[in-house]
């Protein structure tokens, strides 16, 4: 019988030890059919995790995301890509539970590097995480708070637009998309509930979004993005608009990886929106005129090159306020002015399989409402 130590050794030797890396010469290929990627027609990513609050409440084990990507090339210039996601393991009718989401389903019309057309269900091109969210590529069991309550990832909707490269390392996307529904905004999570997700979306006025990136220097990627659109189409005589401005950068050199992001949300007509929602539902949602958030993250790959696997430690500081500026007559609630420290480690069993551990410490301005603090363990993979 194996004891626990022998079991771990067996696991290391048989499951976790990687295959010997090929030497560069062995990896030479020349486009012969045998060099085609060894992959099936379906790709995807998954992650599940355990969150243990430190206040003694029971922990939660959640199969958070099960995502499959399907693609098809009609020709060199005409392609279909889709991303279907099941969140929280199960979807049950009429009960609060998981979500089945069609996050992407678009056709690309590739004309030339500087101008291509895209139409269908698309990711909103805002921020780092929304378009780059495979679990092995970001640190932390959960996505950053800023990418949850300020930039409402995963943010997707129906629309059409253009994308391409200007040259010299500059890339862009510019889309017209279904607008956000202001009835679903909240004080705690801002725009998050407002995406129509292409579900018989109302488009009396479309929203516009775009992103400009610079990726011309090795190890450095920067971007600026925006969103602007009407939001009050389901509220008679209410003229509200939502705008978002975002800046981000990632830089890596050697073992060091850093990233940072700043985002600010503007909700024009938030006072009228609160009044209208109060009359409609009896509850004033206390939506803010402005939301703001930013974070900085530093990670360092710690294992020596002689070790076959990789591991990194990281620390992230976030500051986010979903009631940064309130409309006249509304009261700012201190529990929504928050900051957070997240410290932890990522261990890559394989470049596509990450084991994550972190501690998340959220603080707020409220002495009454305790902010969440938790120890989190997760496993995420891509195939």
């Amino acid at each position, binding site marked *: 019988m194996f004891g626990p130590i022998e079991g771990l050794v067996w696991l290391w030797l048989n499951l976790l030890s990687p295959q010997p890396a090929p030497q560069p010469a062995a*990896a030479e*290929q*020349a*486009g012969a059919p045998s060099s085609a990627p060894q992959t099936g027609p379906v790709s995807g990513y998954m992650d599940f995790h355990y969150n243990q609050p430190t206040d003694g409440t029971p922990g939660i084990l959640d199969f958070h995301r099960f995502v499959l990507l399907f693609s098809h090339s009609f020709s060199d210039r005409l392609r279909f890509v889709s991303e279907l996601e099941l969140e929280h393991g199960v979807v049950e009718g009429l009960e609060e539970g998981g979500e089945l989401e069609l996050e992407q389903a678009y056709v690309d019309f590739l004309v030339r590097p500087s101008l291509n057309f895209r139409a269908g269900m698309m990711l909103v091109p805002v921020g780092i995480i929304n378009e780059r969210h495979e679990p092995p590529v970001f640190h932390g069991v959960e996505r950053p708070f800023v990418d949850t309550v300020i930039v409402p990832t995963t943010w997707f909707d129906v629309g059409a637009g253009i994308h391409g490269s200007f040259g010299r390392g500059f*890339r862009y996307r510019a889309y017209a998309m279904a607008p956000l529904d202001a009835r679903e905004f909240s004080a705690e999570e801002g725009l998050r509930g407002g995406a129509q997700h292409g579900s018989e979306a109302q488009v009396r006025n479309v929203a516009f979004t775009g992103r400009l990136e610079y990726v011309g220097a090795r190890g450095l990627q920067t971007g600026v993005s925006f969103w602007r659109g009407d939001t009050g189409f389901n509220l008679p005589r209410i003229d509200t608009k939502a705008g978002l401005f975002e800046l981000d950068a990632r830089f890596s050199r050697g073992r060091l990886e850093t990233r940072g992001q700043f985002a600010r949300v503007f909700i024009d007509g938030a006072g009228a929106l609160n009044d209208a929602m109060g009359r409609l539902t009896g509850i004033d949602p206390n939506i803010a005129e402005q939301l703001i958030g930013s974070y900085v993250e530093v990670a360092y790959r710690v294992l020596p090159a002689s070790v076959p696997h990789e591991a990194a430690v990281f620390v992230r500081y976030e500051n986010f306020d979903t009631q940064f500026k309130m409309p006249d007559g509304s009261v700012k609630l201190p529990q929504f002015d928050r900051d957070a420290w997240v410290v932890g480690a990522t261990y890559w069993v394989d470049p596509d399989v990450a084991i994550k551990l972190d501690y998340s410490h959220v603080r707020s301005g409220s002495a009454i409402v305790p902010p969440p603090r938790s120890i989190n363990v997760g496993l995420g993979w891509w195939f």
Partner: protein
Amino acid sequence: MVVLLVSGAAAGHGQSAPPPRVIHIVAERFLFTPSEITVEEGSVVELRITSEDTDHGFRLRGLGDVNLTVPKRGRGDVRVTIEANEPGNYVFECSHVCGAGHGFMRGALRVKARRSSGGTR
């Protein structure tokens, strides 16, 4: 016409052939760095492509059947040698679905026409 060769076959050009210019390309979700490469007509270049994360593909459009697998981070590189004999802009792209932004992972290889020396200078 641009001719593609296995890296190790470049020596077949004879002893007088100069060594190819080596260009290192890093692939990661969802870009190639550099994503724009300019070479002179008639030059021979060796592309050495590594990945910073998952498996990627490297497909060079308009230059025959070039479709390579770029191995995962830490597992070596993939190399291809190119004789840039015909001016033009050639698109390269990731041919292995690598994530939500896979469709943006493209670049261009520009073969710049050589200035006519014409023997008159």
